[in-house]
């Protein structure tokens, strides 16, 4: 299969302008003749739905939530990057571009990243106009902070609720279009399948989560903005409902899945407290600005932290990375924590935790300053753990947070299935092997507000779309397939709940395809996952029926897809014989334990083609060229 990424040529600064100038346009009067399905109402989906409706397209938006305001974009705390250079500290589009390519460990496309940095400035303007209450200085101008180890202050924020405020901005824009009748919004509808007719994406199958009705919806193009797949690990910082179903079903219908093994493990999460744990909670990484991370020097030290003298503590990040110290990037800080815990020096229940200690900062700055900076986070920590972080060091441990992989898309954000576009975390294109802090919000909104409105027009203007309807053989078959799958799940009548399978799968993935991977472990996972999948289809129990609100059934359907998708992740991790960003293969490290990239052999995007459940998928490679940023080893020492 030929992968055509549709990258424009010429100087990188002019590529997006040139591309936009070359894209064909749809006449304003003709836009209403085109219909678009948008699945997902997070930052990417809501911004795309609203903007496409403003342009005049007929939009149908779908969400599995009860309202379009609940997608997990809402939980982002820290902020959104933009190359405004309001602080006069040397930021520029070029610098944001450079930081993002380097931070992604040279596994992202230069052209896409440059465009992202370019439109970042428009996002802030748009959000301000919508009434997003960004933090302001006393003079009334927008405030910035430095975030995620960046050397400039380019992060815009709204207290610790930036994701919420940006999402509400997009949601309100969407609600306006719903009120005007330009968007038909479908709440509580979960996508079950993609309908492909004559090689083009022409519709979706949904299940109504209240009535259980399964039906098809047809359109001229389908946009998936359905987020990431971090919940394949069961425990992650994702919301409970986040799942891979929409993108994975599209994958089974022919869309290539790119770099599924690239997962981001966030270093500062609250450790697991028991077997009943349902999710992990992120503590903003801004805490690392003042907190010092340490573990006892000796294995199995059971003393309480205040009884451990300085001389018996190992501030391992400061020791190993003197220039970045506690502010080392996420992938590096996470791996270092795992290392010390593997050595048996972890703290707290099960030894899976390290201390994040504010006592020095409190001594230096006083409790009040620390409370002003982190008061709400300290409160949240205490609410969850019952411990007061002003008195006792916090305990933190890394957790799955974001997935850089996703459906393969070209420069137009279109997958290899014509008419299927993929936005936000659901695609793979901008973050390479590791995402920088405050860049997820930026990408979701860039895709939805400023990229898809142009590129989808180019697709429609090419013509060739024939009329389709729900009576077509493909649509009827897809509905039948979905109904069949639901019936099968309900009729197994075994003993184990969907959650119990999900937990077991998550454990396999965390142990074998988590923070560190190796060949033997991945091969073991590739044996155990199919076994677990087999048991799932024989021993699952889903109470209730398909024609009612049935949360066990919803979960069962999602877990069924995770059980297939997990295998794909392991295949990807196994073929990538190098370490890069969030993908750390133990066999490929330097003498002092740092990730060892192999640009000679692995400077490519791994795009996988589905060949059948349980069959080895086919690998297609899109090679990456770096003309503007020199390939270099990331060093934070």
């Amino acid at each position: 299969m030929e992968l055509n990424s549709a990258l424009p040529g010429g100087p990188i600064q002019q590529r997006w302008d040139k591309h936009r100038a070359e894209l064909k346009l749809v006449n304003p009067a003709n836009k209403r003749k085109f219909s678009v399905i948008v699945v997902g109402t997070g930052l990417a989906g809501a911004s795309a739905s609203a903007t496409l409706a403003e342009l005049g397209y007929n939009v149908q938006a779908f969400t599995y939530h009860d309202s379009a305001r609940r997608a997990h974009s809402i939980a982002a705390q820290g902020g959104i990057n933009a190359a405004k250079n309001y602080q006069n500290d040397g930021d520029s589009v070029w610098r944001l571009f450079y930081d993002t390519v380097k931070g992604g460990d040279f596994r992202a496309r230069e052209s896409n990243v440059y465009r992202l940095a370019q439109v970042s400035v428009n996002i802030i303007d748009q959000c301000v106009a919508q009434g997003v209450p960004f933090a302001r200085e006393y003079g009334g101008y927008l405030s910035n902070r430095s975030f995620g180890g960046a050397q400039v202050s380019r992060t815009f924020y709204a207290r610790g609720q930036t994701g919420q405020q940006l999402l509400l901005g997009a949601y309100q824009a969407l609600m306006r279009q719903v009120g005007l009748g330009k968007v038909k919004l479908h709440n509580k509808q979960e996508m079950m399948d993609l309908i492909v007719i004559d090689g083009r994406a022409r519709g979706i199958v949904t299940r109504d989560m209240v009535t259980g009705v399964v039906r098809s919806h047809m359109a001229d193009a389908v946009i998936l903005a359905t987020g990431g797949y971090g919940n394949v690990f069961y425990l992650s910082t994702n919301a409970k409902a986040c799942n891979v179903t929409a993108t994975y079903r599209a994958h089974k219908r022919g869309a290539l899945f790119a770099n599924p093994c690239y997962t981001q493990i966030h270093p500062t999460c609250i450790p697991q407290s028991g077997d009943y744990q349902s999710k992990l909670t992120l503590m903003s990484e801004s805490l690392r600005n003042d907190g010092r991370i340490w573990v006892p020097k000796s294995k199995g030290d059971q003393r309480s932290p205040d009884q451990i003298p300085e001389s018996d503590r190992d501030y391992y990040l400061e020791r190993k990375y003197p220039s970045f110290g506690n502010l080392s990037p996420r992938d590096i800080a996470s791996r270092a924590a795992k290392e010390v815990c593997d050595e048996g020096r972890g703290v707290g229940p099960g030894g899976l935790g390290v201390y994040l200690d504010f006592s020095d900062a409190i001594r230096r700055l006083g409790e009040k300053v620390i409370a002003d900076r982190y008061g709400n986070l300290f409160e949240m920590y205490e609410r969850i753990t019952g411990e007061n972080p002003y008195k006792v060091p916090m305990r933190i441990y890394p957790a799955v947070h974001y997935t850089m992989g996703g459906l393969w898309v070209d420069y137009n954000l279109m997958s290899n299935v014509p008419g299927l576009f993929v936005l936000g975390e659901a695609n793979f294109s901008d973050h390479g092997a590791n995402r920088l802090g405050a860049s997820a919000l930026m990408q979701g909104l860039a895709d939805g507000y400023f990229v898809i409105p142009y590129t989808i027009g180019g697709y429609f203007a090419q013509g060739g779309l024939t009329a389709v309807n729900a009576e077509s053989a493909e649509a009827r078959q897809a509905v039948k397939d979905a109904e069949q799958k639901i019936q099968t799940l309900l009729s197994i009548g075994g003993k184990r709940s969907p959650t119990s399978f999900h937990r077991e799968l998550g454990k396999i993935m965390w142990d074998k395809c988590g923070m560190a991977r190796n060949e033997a472990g991945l091969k073991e996972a590739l044996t155990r996952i199919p076994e677990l999948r087999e048991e799932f289809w024989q021993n699952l129990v889903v109470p209730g029926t398909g024609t009612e609100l049935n949360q066990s059934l919803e979960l069962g359907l999602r877990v069924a897809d995770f059980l297939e998708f997990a295998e794909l992740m392991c295949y990807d991790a196994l073929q990538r014989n190098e370490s890069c960003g969030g993908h750390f293969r133990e066999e490929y490290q330097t003498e002092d334990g740092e990730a060892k990239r192999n640009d000679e052999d692995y400077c490519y995007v791994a795009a996988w083609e589905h060949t059948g459940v349980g069959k080895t998928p086919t690998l297609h490679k899109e090679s990456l060229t770096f003309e503007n940023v020199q390939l270099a080893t990331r060093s934070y020492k």
Partner: protein
Amino acid sequence: MNLRLHIWRQAGPDDMGMLKTYDIANVSEHMSFLEMLDVLNEELIAKGENPVAFDHDCREGICGTCGMVINGRPHGPLARTTACQLHMRTFKDGDEIYIEPWRAKAFPVLRDLVVDRGSFDRIIQKGGFISVNTGNAQDGNTLPIGKPDADRAMDAAACIGCGACVAACPNSSAMLFTAAKIGHLASLPQGQAERSSRALDMVLQMDTEGFGACTNHYECEAACPKGISAEFIAQMNRDFVASALGGKA
């Protein structure tokens, strides 16, 4: 700890519904309230019974999806805490806990603890936005907004749309929810152009949906997990009256 739970069970919108009693053993104090319900549901599934349906998603207190009345209080006994952030250390061995859905005419029960809050979205559709198309915006810093105004806007915008205010109100009024959005946008210069029509249209929609009126109990403010102030209701009333009388808010 061991607990006795009395949970509202209702098979569907047309079912009468009733409280059913469940005993649950060995609850850890570190569990969240929803994790305790997860454990109960796994036990119910193992016994071949239908698990309790309840809404939830982020489990970090920000998405606004979860909501249940716990011992008569929306989101339970802790102030400024959503049900998902409530932990079992708040309870003690032997406690009896009553768990019910939000109860309001405008929030019909779909199943057990799950209600339909579509009415909130329809209120927002009537004007809870600034009419600006993508691409219209000028540079963000061309419009300075004083820090107190920006802070006040943020105080109101922190609403998570969970519906606890409605559940707490003896009149099932959605005044705090509606006022929070009106107050957010009225605090900002960008929100002035549509200020009058916004207040009028959103309040009318609130009435159409079947929410009650405010009689100053302030239960909404006490139940709000984000601590939104009832002052915004006063501001909304002023904008509404001015607008209804044909003036400018």
